[in-house]
């Protein structure tokens, strides 16, 4: 199979390989023309002023194809260990390579699997949701994703169905691989589910591109726990649009951990779209070398009596750089809003840098919104104290960094996730002078 480029010829050939409903093809064509009409963002764009993508060249990559299965044996998931799963999907270089789904759940009307095949099979469930309310086609990366997505996953839980067993999604890349995966979760009213998603690279040196999106549609009174571990190798470009729309009296717990990638630019939005909706966003970032991770988050209160909580913590090593720009937005009718936003950064080296920019945009008059951010180094007195109790300097560091993240671990109710993150963090802490 020849490699298709991201040009008109490549796109047309790509379309001809897809047997998809017409509305999907129309969506792709529409997005493709938008992709062509737009330039790449530059540092003159406000969202990108701290994020330099001049070294990113799309033409170094090509469209995902099903014959890129190298490196598959080097991939091992972290989040699913010891978990009784309701189903799992593994995509490699943007193509589904393995999937499973518990029969019993299928009987109850739950749908789960690779979006590639389900978009045709369940066109009726997707034609009014896919790439709509929970997706903003704002920039060229979003347009690229919307026109060329492949692989992906779809989870649908019908009204009132509670799924106890978590679902697991693994997306992996090998050298030169491209992942344009799209994850869409739809919980109907009163449904509940847990999804554990993670990414991995075959080797730390493998170059790759992820330009993806997550859509979470949480119906009235529904309850979704979503865990997202971004663990790409450090030569992967990561561009992602992630958005949740949360219904009346519904609850979303969204935990993100980001350890990987060369450069990340993530837009993570939660829209509280019905009265009494609640969201909790937790984030753990741990960066090293020259990694650059940029998060633009929004808690958007559209209706009254909603609650949103946001806590992101980052530890930075070496010359790494994180950007967090957060916004609590409250519409005029969203009275009795309770919004909370906090970002703490721990600088483990002199050359690391954390930009932390909280923001509020409030149009209602009866609200309670608080925000805060801290950025600091590890307190030498803490290290000394632990050393006086027999900890080596490195053990003390690991202890302090783990403690720094503990507040988030305390919020994670899934053992396998807590264990995997704890281990990944402890492994990463190095010797510091």
């Amino acid at each position, binding site marked *: 199979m020849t490699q298709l480029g991201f040009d008109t010829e490549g796109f047309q050939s790509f379309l001809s390989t897809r047997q998809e409903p017409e509305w999907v093809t129309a969506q792709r064509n529409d997005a493709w023309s938008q992709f062509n009409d737009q330039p790449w963002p530059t540092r003159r764009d406000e969202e990108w002023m701290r994020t330099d993508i001049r070294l990113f060249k799309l033409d170094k990559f090509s469209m995902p194809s099903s014959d890129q299965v190298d490196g598959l044996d080097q991939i091992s998931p972290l989040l699913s260990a010891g978990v009784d799963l309701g189903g799992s999907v593994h995509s490699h270089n943007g193509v589904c390579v393995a999937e499973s789904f518990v029969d019993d759940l299928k009987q109850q009307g739950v749908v789960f699997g690779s979006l590639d095949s389900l978009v045709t099979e369940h066109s009726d469930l997707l034609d009014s949701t896919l790439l709509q309310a929970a997706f903003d086609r704002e920039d060229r990366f979003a347009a690229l994703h919307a026109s060329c997505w492949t692989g992906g996953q779809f989870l649908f839980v019908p009204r009132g169905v509670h799924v106890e067993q978590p679902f697991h999604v693994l997306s992996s890349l090998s050298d030169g691989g491209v992942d344009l995966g799209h994850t869409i979760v739809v919980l109907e009213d009163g449904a509940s589910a847990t999804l554990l998603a993670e990414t991995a690279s075959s080797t730390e040196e493998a170059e790759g591109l992820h330009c993806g999106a997550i859509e979470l549609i949480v119906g009235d009174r529904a309850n979704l726990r979503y865990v997202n571990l971004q663990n790409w190798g450090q030569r992967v470009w990561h561009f992602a649009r992630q958005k949740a729309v949360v219904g009346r009296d519904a609850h979303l717990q969204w935990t993100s951990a980001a350890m990987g990638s060369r450069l990340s630019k993530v837009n993570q939005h939660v829209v509280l779209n019905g009265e009494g909706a609640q969201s909790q966003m937790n984030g753990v970032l741990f960066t090293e070398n020259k990694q650059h991770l940029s998060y633009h988050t929004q808690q958007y209160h559209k209706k009254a009596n909603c609650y949103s909580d946001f806590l992101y913590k980052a530890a930075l090593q070496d010359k790494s750089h994180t950007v967090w720009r957060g916004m609590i937005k409250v519409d005029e009718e969203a009275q009795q809003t309770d919004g909370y936003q906090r970002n703490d950064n721990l600088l483990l080296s002199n050359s690391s840098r954390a930009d932390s920019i909280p923001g509020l945009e409030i149009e209602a008059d009866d609200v309670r919104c608080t925000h805060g951010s801290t950025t600091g180094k590890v307190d030498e007195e803490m290290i000394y104290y*632990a050393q*006086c109790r027999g900890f080596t300097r490195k053990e003390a560091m690991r202890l*302090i960094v783990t403690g720094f993240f503990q507040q988030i671990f305390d919020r994670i109710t899934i053992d396998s996730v807590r264990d995997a993150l704890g281990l990944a963090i402890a492994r990463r802490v190095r010797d510091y002078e």
Partner: protein
Amino acid sequence: MTHVLKIENLQVAVEGKPILRGVDLEIKHGETHALMGPNGSGKSTLGQAIMGHPKYEVTGGTITLDGEDLLEMEPDERARAGMFMAFQRPVAIPGVKMADFLRHSTTNVRNPERKEGEDLIPMKDFRRELKDKMQQLQMDMEFARRYVNDGFSGGEMKRAEILQLAMLQPKFAILDETDSGLDADAVRLASESIADIGREKMGLLIITHHDKLLVHNPPEFTHVMLGGRLVETGGSELAEELHANGYERIRAAYPEAEAENLAMAGE
């Protein structure tokens, strides 16, 4: 063999400023020494220098434990060699549970050769021992689940330090103002705890400018520090005298040290 902590002609500077100007002190296992003196005389500096605080620069002299040079060791190596200090103001380590901290710490101190990543002492044994010690100290077990010194009251911090002393069973312990900030009952409890741990099982250096702790733990030796020197040494009667009359006699008797003390305190 009787363990000996030996300090000879110790000189210590902080940010280039001399604080200790030649301290000699020898503590044998089983002995209790009181270190008294007015504020700013250098008492806590001695404690920090013995433990190896990076900001306290030793500019001369030696500290040895059973002939081993402590000054060559990192603070954690000193702890593993059997040194302990109960901090006057211990720092909080948010997110780290007291029990986890102590289990790791106890493991390292009891197995000085332990390599990073090797097993910790078994959870069951550790829990049992911790529970015993906490009961002795009349501490609620809930305490073990709290984060190290995080949000502790002054009294809780001091008790947590004594709990660590009880668990780590060092050869030598420095108690830096362990009685300050405690009410009379808490001091009595702390003193009894130290007595329970067994004064005879370690060498104690009690840094204080009151004598509350000393009433329950009468020292065999009392040293008075002024201007970064030990200007007088006596028995427990010296501690009583200083408690009753203050430092006026000392200040008058050692004008040179007093002048240095004033200069240090003035900075």
